[in-house]
Structures are given as C-alpha cells and as structure tokens.
C-alpha cells in the first residue's frame, strides 16, 4: 500500500505492505539508517524519531499511521556539516561510546530542549527514561544535554 510523508523536510513516497513499521521504511526503503533497530518492542528508544512533534519509537509505529506526517530523524538534526549544539555537546562531553544508542538520545533530547525554556537535570533524567545506554552510565549524556540547554 502506498504511503507518503515528509522526512527531514523532503517529501518521500514508498509502497510497502500494511504492518511494516516506520523504522523499516526509514532504514530499508529510504536508506536512513540513523535510527537504530535494537529491541523492536518499544523498550530501548534507539529508534526514536519525531512524528508531527511527538517523539516515538519507530520500531512499533505502523508506517501507514505516518501518512502525510512530518518526520524528523537524527539525519535531520545537523545543518549540512554543522552539528547542532546538542550534537556538538555530545562530542565534547564524551557521550558516545559504541554509539548505538546515540541517535535515539539525540532525537529525544532535541525534543526535550525544543519544548523547554530551561531544563533541569531531574527533567532530563525523567524524560530520557525510555532511552537505554549499555555503555556510558548516562552521566556524560545528561551532562551534554545540560550543556546544550545552557547555550542560546
């Protein structure tokens, strides 16, 4: 069944069976492999993308439910070669080890920063509860989000 939506500002159209997930469409049809496939059960957040302003787990979201939507993936965060301030903060704070969780954290934290004037550590830790990292112990990730939140 055909499906069209906007991803990172570009209109796309695909033809996939109903029941295909949004993550499968992004990775397998559109070559956007930034969002990761890990648990495929909504538990880890590695596949987080923003659909019409809502951060969700693309691995359990029906692709056809995104018909006509505006989707943002991790590929849409940088401006060409210029990293977003959050991405730069991740590099500076050493928030990336194996990197598998990083796209999900970046997308989720971008949403947190864009919906709050100021963010506390408590807020960041609460709102990142659906993103798991097996490597860093989280402290460096939280530091990066706090640092990016302080920048204009």
């Amino acid at each position, binding site marked *: 069944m055909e499906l069209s939506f906007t991803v990172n500002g570009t209109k796309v159209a695909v033809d996939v069976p109903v029941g295909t997930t949004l993550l499968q469409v992004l990775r397998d049809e559109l070559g956007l492999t930034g969002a990761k496939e890990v648990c*495929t059960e909504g538990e880890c957040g590695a596949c987080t993308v923003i659909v019409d302003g809502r951060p969700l787990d693309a691995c359990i979201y029906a692709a056809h439910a995104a018909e006509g939507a505006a989707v943002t993936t991790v590929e849409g965060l940088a401006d060409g070669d210029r990293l977003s301030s959050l991405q730069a903060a991740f590099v500076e704070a050493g928030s990336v080890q194996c990197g598998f969780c990083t796209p999900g954290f970046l997308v989720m934290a971008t949403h947190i920063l864009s919906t709050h004037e100021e963010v506390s550590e408590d807020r960041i830790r*609460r709102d990142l509860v*659906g993103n798991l990292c097996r490597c860093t112990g989280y402290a460096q990730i939280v530091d990066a989000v706090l640092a990016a939140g302080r920048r204009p």
Partner: protein
Amino acid sequence: MDFRRAETTDEILSLLSELGPDAAILAGGTDLMVQYLRGEVAPRVLLHIEGVSELRGVRLVDDVLEIGTATTHRDVGSDHQIRTHLPGLAEAARQVGGFQTQAVGTVGGNICNASPAADTVPPLLVADAEALLVSSRGSRVVPLGRFLLGRRRTGRRPDELLAAIRARPLPSGSGETYLKVGRRGGMEVAIVGLAARVGFSGETITDVRLAVCSMAPTPLRLPEAEQTLVGTRGEPEAVAAAAAAILEATEPIDDARATAAYRRRLVEPLVGEAMRICRRRARGEEVAWN
C-alpha cells in the same frame, strides 16, 4: 492486511459495522503493534483512529469528567482539569512506560488492551469510572469494573468503539494517589499498583476507595478492604486489616517481574503510604508527584 484511516467518529462506526471482528482499532499502537510483530494477533484491517480529534481531550460535563479515549498519556498527565479533579489518574499516566510510550499511547488503548497491569485503570476505578461504548446501533454506558472481564478480555462488542470514559471528580476534603512499584523508577510494568481516594472528617476516615492492578487477572476495586478503614484514623491495625482484606480478594501470581509472595508483602506498606499521602493532600499539602 488493509489500512483504513478514520477522521471522524462516524467514519469509525461505519467501518466497524462493515468489518466487525476483522478490524483492529489502532490508536497509538504501543500494545497492538507489539502484539502484531510478535505474531500474537493477525487482524485483516488496521483501523487508525489517532487522527480523530473528537476522541481527544477532557471536558467537565454536569460535574463529571469526560475523557476522550484517544487522549494520550502525556496529555492526560499534563491536563489541568485532570490534575485537579483526577490527580491519581494524572499520576498514573505519567508512569506508563517512557516518554515515547506516553507520547502516543492512549487511555482507550490502555483500557481495551485489558492488561492486569494497566496503570490508568485503578485510579479510574476509584473515581467510579464508566465506559461510553458507541456503535452505529446506538450507545451504552457500562461501569468500568464490569467492562473488564479478564486478561485481554473486555465486554466490547466487535462493532463498538470505546469513545469516552466518565469519571467522578475528587470531592473536596478528600485526597487521592496512585502508587506503583516497579524494579526501576520508569519504563516498568507494575509489580503492584494501588490507587486510593480517601475522604476525611478531621482525622477520621469517612470514605475510602481502593483499587489495585497486577494482583488479579484484571485491576479490581476492593470494597471489603475499604470498609475496614472507614471510621478509623488509618492507624497501623486498620491498615493491616485492610491489607488482609485485599489479599483475601486478590490472587497474585509469580511471573518474570516478581513472586506472588513479594506482591503480597507490598500491599500493607502501600496501603499505609497511600493513607498518609491522601491525608496530606486532603489538607491541601503538596505531596510530590511520583
């Protein structure tokens, strides 16, 4: 599998009367899609209702709060009327899964999925919630406790939509809470969840409603336990009697999350904590959200 997107309630109802049991209503999909991907369900048609704005939002009608079933947990948790009149429900909605789960998961999906651990159900049960079911044949109102029949079983007929939940606002002089025990602070299915709505006259408890989840095949109201607390001050003996009555009325099981014995042990301290929080909230004190 086919995909149909509804824009209005009428469209949902005509598609449901045409398709009956072949259609699965798809709201946020956080239960349905997981079950589909695991091969546990194989509907012929996904009927997508996220775009139906009539089913979203909260209204106060004749002193009853009416919650559209496609309202997401995030919207429930931040809605001013719910935080004022159904604070236990707001507290529960903020503890469903993680941010991503709450951003798309809905109250209607939580109820209709009929999990023993559904977090929004205990606080709705203590608010005498009723389910508004509509079909192209008409509509009916069923007490929520009677709508939930067992694990993954409800009284919904194949052509019916759960359109709204109606709940009684917290009376003045009362306090309410939802307490959830999991292995970590978030992203946890409840090992035990307890909702309490308690009215006081001075120090004395005059009215109590209690409901639990993850203690039986469906979340339950606990009338016998409630009776043991009325007229007391919530002293330890009264709390112990209430906990004993809860254990009498429930049948906790061993599962991957916890043993039945651990679940039983949690009940008494949870009741005690709920009485303390409700008392402070009834006095108007701020007690931090979970």
